[in-house]
């Protein structure tokens, strides 16, 4: 098996190329996804290969083209829509939440909506309050949606391919500061199952559950902690819904301590959800309170010092781990 180093964006691009070649019902639509190859270059080369009908440049009309993607998914296509920033997906909320997510259930199991909506979120790049949010929990809250958030090029490719082949609406959330990161990706075709977490680093002393770009932060923090004699197990759920709670609980049964890290806001967020599930399913195994590391409850500010203060960093993770490991 040959393994290459690919960027996150290249891995996503390969997934799209492969799935479009494999299945003529796969189509791509969104703003600047065609001739321009999309602002983050994830759809590069698709337009030249598959033409303007299958790779549709749309006007700046998020609700409109998302609605078109929903209708197309109901009638025999497998659209992959790109919403440039997750912040803009708020404009398409009726199509995603009321139409795509509910069609199967409210029509008594007769509808199929094999739709992927790709979007990217997250802060750290000075894009300010309308281009930096982490709204993944908005979608996790809605029954009928699958929510995926890959942290590595390998996961990004394998999960995007699985998402395109899945018959449910999938919200596929990338991170703007991961596109340039690199990692090993095999030459051969592979799929990664939806709803399966990945233990990114084994350890016995504490469990760190982290998502998206913060998985990289958690791994760096774990290296620092190892120098202090603390072995952290880092788990990336990869799919936020359905959440692989079993892998997390098994780890907590081993370590007795849990830190949950997510770039969404603290209140009503992913960290609270995981904490609630774990205390319910592994209460007797816990030796310390569950710590939450999340973004401050403020809109993301433009100023660099302020923004870095608002979103979690490696030191925040280290501090949280130290607090739980020294708990008697």
């Amino acid at each position, binding site marked *: 098996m040959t393994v290459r180093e690919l960027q996150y964006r290249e891995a996503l691009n390969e997934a799209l190329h492969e799935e479009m070649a494999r299945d003529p019902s796969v189509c791509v639509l969104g703003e600047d996804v065609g001739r321009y190859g999309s602002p983050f270059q994830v759809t590069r080369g698709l337009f030249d290969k598959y033409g303007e009908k299958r790779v549709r440049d749309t006007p700046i009309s998020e609700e*409109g083209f998302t609605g078109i993607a*929903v209708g197309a998914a109901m009638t025999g296509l497998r659209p992959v829509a790109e919403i440039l920033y997750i912040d803009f997906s708020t404009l398409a909320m009726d199509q995603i939440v009321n139409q795509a997510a509910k069609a199967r259930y409210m029509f008594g199991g007769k509808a199929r909506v094999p739709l992927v909506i790709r979007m990217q979120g997250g802060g750290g790049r000075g894009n300010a309050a309308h281009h930096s949010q982490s709204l993944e929990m908005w979608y996790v809250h809605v029954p009928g949606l699958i929510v995926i958030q890959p942290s590595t090029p390998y996961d990004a490719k394998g999960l995007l391919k699985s998402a395109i082949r899945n018959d449910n609406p999938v919200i596929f959330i990338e991170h703007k500061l991961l596109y340039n990161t690199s990692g090993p990706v095999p030459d051969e075709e592979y799929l990664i199952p939806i709803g399966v977490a990945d233990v990114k680093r084994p350890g016995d002393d504490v469990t760190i559950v982290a998502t998206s770009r913060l998985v990289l932060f958690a791994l760096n923090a774990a290296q620092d902690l190892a120098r202090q004699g603390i072995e952290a197990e880092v788990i990336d759920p990869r799919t936020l819904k359905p959440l692989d709670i079993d892998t997390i609980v098994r780890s907590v049964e081993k370590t007795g301590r849990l830190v949950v890290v997510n770039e969404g806001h603290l209140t009503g967020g992913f960290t609270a959800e995981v904490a609630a599930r774990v205390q319910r399913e592994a209460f007797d195994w816990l030796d310390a309170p569950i710590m939450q590391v999340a973004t401050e409850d403020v809109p993301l500010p433009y100023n660099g010092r302020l923004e870095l203060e608002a979103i979690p960093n490696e030191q925040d993770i280290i501090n949280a781990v130290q607090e739980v490991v020294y708990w008697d």
Partner: protein
Amino acid sequence: MKLSRDKLTDMYYRMWLIRYFDEGARSLFQENMIRGTTHMYTGEEAVAVGACSALNQDDYITSTHRGHGHCLAKGGDPRAMMAELLGKATGYCKGKGGSMHIADFDLGILGANGIVGGGIGIATGAAYSADLRGSGQVAICFFGDGASNQGVLMEVANMAALWKLPIIYLCEENQYAQFSPSKPFIAIEGIEMKAQAFGLTGVTVDGNDVLAVYEAVRQAAERTRNREGPTLLVAKTYRVEGHTVGDPLTYRPKSETEQWKSAERDPISRFGRYLAEEASFSKNELETFQAKAQADIDEAIKFAINSPEPEITALWEDVYV
């Protein structure tokens, strides 16, 4: 275009089927057998029947929260519809959708919709899909004067016009939007004028004349199948009933409604007169078709009442494929 006797019979029967279905639904609602709310289509039958009669079975429609008429006009089964209104396991959605969420994908009915304008994006997506697959299907998107003010219409109509998608945006201008007259909420005189801004062909038609609607839709469908672009077709009609059953209708004079309910204007009476005077149907024949519609609805109500409730386990079914 000259229509066959069978076709005319079917259209007349379906108009009565819709009328009796909604009258039955009103009674069941008033008897507390229907939960939530119910929206009646009475007085607008010519729009749904005229439009759907001009389509093929595999063509698509999206409907509205006032959707019983569209579903029946496209060939929907009144028994499964009535059972759905009663929340029964035999209903179109196994009792989990109710009045505003009936779909039949085998008949191209992509769903009624609880969101005003909620079907507009879906219909355009179906047209996009038909175009990409080269299937020759068209989509009709039914919506009302209220929904003509929703932003999504401007977004998707623009794309449909740019890409020459096979779609007809059919506005049933019934003069009311929820609990208000629609005119004070639309800045321009005539919804059809929006067609120019959207890049569509704008056409108006008498929405109480079933044959006029049929012909307008037939022509619009032919144009759009030939990639000559989509049409915004405005069918002028009148919402005889309130927004929902039980609406006190404090916002309009009774005399106005009485005029529209008169035999002169009522779409079924008008079509009946045409059939008798211009197509040599006998009084007896017309009464037979009407009676059959009534009997079919009676049977649908009986079926619905006698159908079982869904099992509790259905609660967790069909959230995901």
